[in-house]
């Protein structure tokens, strides 16, 4: 790669993918003074980001089996509340034990929370029922943790709004059709603009692939492989707010064991399987039934609540294709892949894995790699920069 003169114009980074990760990365790089262009084939947050559960994780879900994800979650949970006030319901979460087996999970759960720095307050059954009267009355115990409800679209939209205000160019309905490459060096992308039907090219010093479960497809255009496993989960939105707090089952992560109140709805999720095409949104009918069965163990009223919507979203889990089939065994942490190191292709970086709660941290990690490659010395500033409101995204 040609050495850039640092006195010349700022380096130009092109981000492929307008989900939460791409938006947060655009914000981070714009704050560091880089020229940023972000392209997205549809509307921003139309892929996995907008379709997630709407849960700001405390990390407690991962406290026993995925320490790294648990620590990432509690750190970003604390930080996001500071930089995006108003984007979260201040409602906390409960982990509810119902069976003997759940009760056996309680001590390692509390130990895991402590080891990960997650505040966890044990409650008696009576205390939990006072907070959430519709809980299964046979519950044995509960633990209160700092989970919260988030607006799955408007929270990430604040990163887009802030990035744009700092000069980033954000282009939606613009689909990448090819990655420009010469002599093992990526130098931009070819695209089709779906708004005016035109084809074109955008040159850049570096291209970041932030396309979530589609990142394997984008990587293939650059002739490299990304070990991604698109792992969808089914969610069911019920009419009525059956709880005010996030309600989780206190056990090793399973299906249908999280209830998230959102506006006048309660969202029950989720399941996990693995697909090859992240655009395949087919919902296995038995998964919807499982949401009702498992969800009603936490709050019996789940069974009688009318269904508002059912849908699925593909998580971009990291893992090779020969790993187990459900996707549950894969870590929820993230990875930045410098394809110069892994595949000998310069100017191309993939950020993938992770979850909505850790979008800012993922962006910081990836931006550090990008800046090192481009010889940019600016530090990350996103930890202390309060984001613009989501409505600023629509400002002219």
């Amino acid at each position, binding site marked *: 790669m040609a050495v850039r003169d640092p006195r010349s114009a700022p380096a130009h980074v092109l981000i492929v993918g307008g989900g939460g990760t791409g938006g947060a990365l655009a914000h981070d790089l714009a704050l560091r003074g880089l020229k940023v262009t972000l392209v997205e084939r549809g*509307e921003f947050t139309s892929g996995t980001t907008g379709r997630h559960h709407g849960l700001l994780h405390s990390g407690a879900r991962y406290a026993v089996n995925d320490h790294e994800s648990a620590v990432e979650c509690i750190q970003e949970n604390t930080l996001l509340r500071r930089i995006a006030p108003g984007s979260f319901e201040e*409602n906390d979460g409960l982990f509810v034990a119902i069976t003997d087996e759940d009760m056996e999970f309680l001590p390692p759960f509390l130990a895991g929370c402590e080891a990960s720095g997650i505040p966890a307050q044990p409650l008696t059954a009576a205390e939990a029922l006072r907070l959430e009267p519709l809980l299964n009355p046979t519950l044995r115990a509960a633990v209160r943790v700092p989970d919260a409800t988030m607006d799955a679209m408007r929270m990430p939209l604040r990163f887009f709004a802030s990035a744009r205000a700092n000069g980033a160019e954000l282009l939606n309905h613009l689909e990448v059709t090819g990655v420009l490459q010469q002599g093992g060096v990526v130098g931009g992308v070819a695209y089709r603009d779906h708004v005016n039907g035109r084809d074109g090219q955008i040159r850049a010093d570096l291209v970041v692939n932030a396309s979530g479960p589609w990142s394997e497809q984008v990587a293939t255009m650059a002739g490299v492989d990304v070990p991604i496993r698109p792992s969808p989960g089914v969610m069911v939105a019920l009419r009525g707010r059956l709880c005010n707090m996030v309600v989780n089952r206190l056990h090793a992560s399973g299906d249908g064991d999280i209830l998230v109140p959102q506006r006048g709805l309660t969202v029950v999720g989720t399941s996990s399987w693995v697909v090859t095409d992240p655009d395949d949104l087919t919902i296995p009918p038995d998964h919807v039934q499982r949401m009702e069965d498992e969800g009603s163990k936490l709050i019996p009223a789940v069974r009688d609540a009318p269904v508002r919507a059912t849908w699925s979203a593909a998580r971009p889990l990291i893992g090779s294709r020969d790993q187990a089939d459900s996707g549950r065994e894969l870590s929820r942490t993230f990875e930045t892949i410098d394809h110069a190191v892994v595949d000998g292709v310069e100017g191309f970086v993939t950020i993938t894995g992770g979850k909505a709660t850790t979008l800012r941290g993922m962006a910081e990690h990836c931006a550090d790699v990008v800046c090192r490659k481009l010889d940019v010395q600016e530090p990350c500033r996103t930890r202390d920069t309060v984001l613009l409101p989501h409505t600023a995204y629509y400002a002219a």
Partner: protein
Amino acid sequence: MSATAQTRRFRVYRYAREDGPARFDEFDVPAAEAGTVLEGLRWIEVHGDPSLAIRHSCFHASCGTCGVRVNGREGLACVTPVDTDTVTVEPVANIPVLADLVVDMRAFVDRYPPQHPLLRDSEARPEADVPEGIDAYERFEDCIECGLCLSACPIAATDDRYVGPAALAWAQRVLEEPRGADVDAILAWADDEHGAWQCHAAFQCTEACPSEVFPAQRIMKLRRELTKRRLSGSSPSS
């Protein structure tokens, strides 16, 4: 030719700026892939025509991006079932179209006074306690800024300066729960010939609202408050 028992005929509004006037394209979508209008549109995007421009995000009536008109009626595509053989899908009315079913939401947001809040008190069940350390539950506003009320409003079709149902319902929400907001300034903003007084009480907005905001009822309450203030001589605009 008509849709078969196994397919649904989607007639979709198409418009691209450099592509001449708007037209309708037809797609036969497998009925099993089109439980909702959004599922049908996504099927068209993936299997029929990737250039179809649509907005969507949450798939469960919580984000407000997929508002369209289906067979002439406003609805969120994600929760509008496909229950006719032919399904005509058009963008919402009274907001400028950018491409196909995508409208320019800047024209919607611009109708609000700047800096409107997103959170309000929870509609918590009264028997529930609030955990220690939390003063009161806060929850997201019911309004999801989808624009369906504006699309359905007969007045917005004739007066493009009318601020419209969503913004007026927002103003009434602030009156109900000011949280330190400048109530007089908001009342002065609403007390305008293109504001609360322009509503003709058609109640189409409330019928179109997918999120139980009841904008028409709120506009009526707002007008009562404005009238009360006028009669008591404390009109914000006097």
